[in-house]
Every structure is written in structure tokens, then in C-alpha cells.
């Protein structure tokens, strides 16, 4: 998986940077530990958000541009989805991927793929809802103009997406924030596993923080919390920068 490989090369640098910073606080980690949990966190959350975006944005545009009875109800359902407790989603995914569940034969329990599934379920409602709000906020005149100029439905949709891009970017970031910061579902379906040498298999930053807090290692938990905040900040900055470039070009 080249994407995974790319993601995993980044944290090696972060691990090198996090080590000295952590040791200043009297907290030490095994070699490669922090880098590997960052890699798993990014791999799982970015994949889940990418998949969610592929589903959510077209869905939001379709719902936003169409007029149909029950549209208000659909919006309510999507908005409710934003409030899904992550543990409940984790339990539902657990039942699905458990040996006894409908997907049991795929043996997905305690894997990153199961974690991606649960984060996909968690990230999709906020991305859809916020994108929908952004799409609905696009001035009707823009749509009408696109139609009058002979645009097909796809053209109209693309114009609307372009107009709503800031809102959609916000939606994706909100989805990413929800995915990377949640602990309940990835703990249940992922199992918080590392290998014996401390390299993460399904441990994310959030589950690592939970583990440290469980053992009363609050300083270590705080260091990992700071890493998580820095990571989210970095991703947000990159997306914002990327967005500005896109406008300029």
C-alpha cells in the first residue's frame, strides 16, 4: 500500500523530534513507539476521512440541489448522525466484524481496517451535514446562471462545489477532527495492540493516551496529547494552505 508507506515515513521524523521533547519532561518512549502510533492514527483517520468525503460530498450536493418531499427529515437524520456516540458505533462495528457477525469471515476484528470502518461511520455524518449546509448556502443565482449557460446537471454540481469549497473544506476538517480524536470505537474494534517491541499495530494516539491514563501515567498521557494536538494543527494548516493555493491558482 503506497499510501500507507508514505504516511509511515512522515512519523519517523516526528518520532525523532518527539523523543527529545518528551525527555525534557522526564517521559521516555521506546524507539519507534510514538512514530508508529502516529502512523497508525494518520493512516486510519486519513483513509476513513477520504472514503467519507467520497461518499459525503456527492451526497450533500445531491441532497442540496434536489427538491423532494422529506428533505427536511433527511437533513435531520444526517444532523443526528453527527451526535453518534463513538462507543456505540464501535459496538455496532464490533458486532459486524466479530467472528459471529455478518462480516466475521473476513477476520477484520482487531485490525486497522475495522478501525477505518468505524471512523468512516463517525466521520460521514459531520462531513455530509456541513457540506450540505455549505451547498445550501450557495446563492441560487449561481445555479441558475450555470443552467442558463447550458450547463448539464454535472456542470451545475461542479459549479456549486466550487462555490462551496470553503464550507466543504471545513466539513472535511471537521470529519478529520472527529475521526482522529475519538477513542471509544477504535479501542473496541482495534484492541489497542502493539507488538512486543512497542511498534503499533492498532494503537492510535487516543488509545495510547487512554492506556497511559489508565495506568496513572498522566505526564506521558499529556505528552501524547500534545502530539495529537500538534498533529491536528498541522493537518489543518496544510489543508488551509492548500485551499488558499487552490484559489490563487
Amino acid at each position, binding site marked *: 500500500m503506497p499510501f500507507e508507506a508514505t504516511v509511515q515515513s512522515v512519523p519517523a521524523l516526528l518520532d525523532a523530534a518527539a523523543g527529545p521533547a518528551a525527555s525534557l519532561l522526564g517521559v521516555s518512549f521506546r524507539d519507534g513507539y510514538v512514530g508508529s502510533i502516529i502512523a497508525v492514527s494518520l493512516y486510519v483517520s486519513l483513509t476513513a476521512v477520504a472514503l467519507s468525503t467520497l461518499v459525503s460530498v456527492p451526497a450533500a450536493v445531491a441532497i442540496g440541489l434536489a427538491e423532494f418531499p422529506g428533505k427536511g427529515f433527511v437533513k435531520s437524520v444526517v444532523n443526528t448522525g453527527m451526535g453518534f456516540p463513538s462507543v456505540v458505533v464501535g459496538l455496532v462495528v464490533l458486532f459486524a466484524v466479530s467472528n459471529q457477525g455478518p462480516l*466475521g469471515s473476513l477476520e477484520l476484528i*482487531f*485490525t486497522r481496517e475495522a478501525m477505518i470502518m468505524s471512523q468512516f461511520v463517525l466521520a460521514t455524518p459531520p462531513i455530509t451535514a456541513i457540506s450540505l449546509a455549505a451547498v445550501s448556502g450557495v446563492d441560487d443565482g449561481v445555479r441558475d446562471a450555470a443552467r442558463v449557460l447550458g450547463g448539464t446537471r454535472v456542470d451545475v454540481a461542479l459549479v456549486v462545489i466550487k462555490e462551496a469549497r470553503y464550507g466543504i473544506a471545513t466539513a472535511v476538517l471537521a470529519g478529520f477532527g472527529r475521526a482522529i480524536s475519538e477513542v471509544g470505537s477504535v479501542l473496541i474494534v482495534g484492541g489497542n495492540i502493539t507488538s*512486543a*517491541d512497542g511498534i503499533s*499495530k492498532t494503537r492510535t494516539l487516543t488509545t495510547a493516551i487512554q492506556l497511559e491514563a489508565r495506568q496513572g*501515567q498522566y505526564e506521558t498521557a499529556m505528552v501524547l496529547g500534545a502530539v495529537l494536538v500538534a498533529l491536528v494543527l498541522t493537518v489543518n494548516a496544510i489543508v488551509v494552505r492548500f485551499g488558499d493555493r487552490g484559489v490563487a491558482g
Partner: protein
Amino acid sequence: MTIHRRGFVAALGTGAVVSTAGCSSGDTGGDGDQSAGSGSDETDDETGGESTDESVGVAGETLTLTTTTSTYDTGLLDAIHTDFEEMYGVTVDAVAQGTGAALETARNGDSDIVMVHARGLEDEFMRNGYGVNRRDLMFNDFVIVGPEDDPAGIQGTSSATDALTAIADAGEPFVSRGDNSGTHTKELNLWEAAGTDPGGDWYQETGSGMGEALNIANQQGAYTLSDRGTFISQRSEIDLTILVQGPIEDGPEILANPYGIMAVNPGVHDNANYDLAMAYIGWITSPAVQEAISEYTANGEQLFFPEAVSADPDFQQYVPEGWSSESGDA
């Protein structure tokens, strides 16, 4: 990250270990078509189209072990697992849950082996057919810890139940795990033995792991029941002290904390990696690894005492406690 739990077919590498137990495995027609240690290179293509063509033993497979937070958090497993992983070329995925959750995960067929510490729950697990080949693994003990000024005056009490009764009578805060873990189960058994029904403002169920419960007790100046291992590994961070010792330090036997290990029954869950589970049980109960367990320390103190290796037979470790064929109680 691929899991080859189904692809363990020609497990010649583990044949020697497995042969001690393979004869009792239920043959369900799934992956069970394997007379252990036969040595022939027969390839059973029951794997439903998955082309996991492992020709040499169990190499590359993953063993999913569900265990308790009190074992995992001491770091013991990380310390000893490298040896097993290198010996067999496999990966051990250790998932730390409470004893109740660890058994439930195994009951659903989502793990291959369980290492827990609540004999009553283990027995139920075996009686229901989910676990086979149980072995006594190691033990430590529980201790009752509390603030140094000991407002309930339990220090030196030789009876754990008297100590708990004293805490209840004094209405001093007591932190309970409240999470269906082995420690929680032990605590509830102790209250029952003491004839006290805990409840009221002083009794707090936290629903948290042992380390967290110790921290909560520390911050509130409360009493709690802890396994010795977790308490030792965390002692430098908290102000609590041991007020009632367990049997390791000549305390009451009721505070003993034995750990057992069981393979998931492949007759119930045919996807369970039974070969590797039995290899693991063989490995962890071997004299060398039992020695390594006894040498594992935290803050300079031994955390676990091995009990798998013994010259004397102990048949009760294989069956639910008190079971005998004469009584027909199965």
C-alpha cells in the same frame, strides 16, 4: 497486517507441542482435519479460497491473546513475547481488557487464547465449552491499600473481610473497579464473605482499570483492593500504602490471585488458531519461560510467581474447580 488464522494447516513446527493435546481436539470438519505431529505434509484446502499457502509451520501467523489490564499494564507480556515471536516466527496480538471482557471476546471467537484471573469465570467459560486445556500459569496476590493515616484503622488486620467490614462501618471512602474485571470479581467475593453489602456515599464504583482506580483512591484518600503487581509498578507515583497483605507476605489466603490460561475450543470456533494457542501454552508453561516470569521485576520487586512447573500432579488446574468424573457434574 494480514492474519492467517485459517492458514495454519501444516503446522509441523508446533507438532511436538501440539501432540500432547491434539488428541483431545474436537474434529468439526473445519480446520480440524489434522492429526497433530503426524509429520506428513498434507495440505488441507479448507480455507475457502484464501490462498494462504504456508508450507512451513505457523510462521507468519498471528495469535490473538485477550488478557487482563493487570497483566498487560505491568509490561510482563511485552518483556517475554519477543522470545515466543522469534521462536515461531509469529506475531502475538495482546489485547488488554477486563477479565469479563477478555472472556467474552474469546466466547465470540475473536481471540485464540485467554489469560485471566478469576477462577469462577474461567470455570464457567470451560463448563460452557468455550475453553480447553486450562493451565495454572502464575500467581501474585491482592492487597488492600489505603492512605497512610488509615482512618478506618485496618493496618495489621489479619483478616481481609474484617478489614473491609471496618472500612464499611467507618464509612471511609472505598474505590471499587466496578468493571467486571478479575479484581472486581475478587472484591465482590470478599464483600460477600464479609457479609457486608457495600453501598452508600463511601463506596465508589469507577468502572476503570487498576492503575486509574489507584489514582482515584490516591486523590481521594480512599481504600481500594489492588493486585500487588499493579500496585508495585505504580507505587512511586502514589501515596497509598499496603494495609492488609496478601498471602505472598503471609496475609490471608483469600487474597490469592492466581492467573490461568486457556485455549479457545476449536470445536466451538473453528477459526480459532488452536495450534498456535497450544504452542503458546506449551511455551509459557515451560520451565525457561516460567523462570523468566519469576525474574520479571518492577521497581525492584518480583511481580508474578510462576506455578505451572511442578513435580506433583495438579488435576484441578485442567477442569472447573471441584469437578470430578464420579459426580457426573459436567
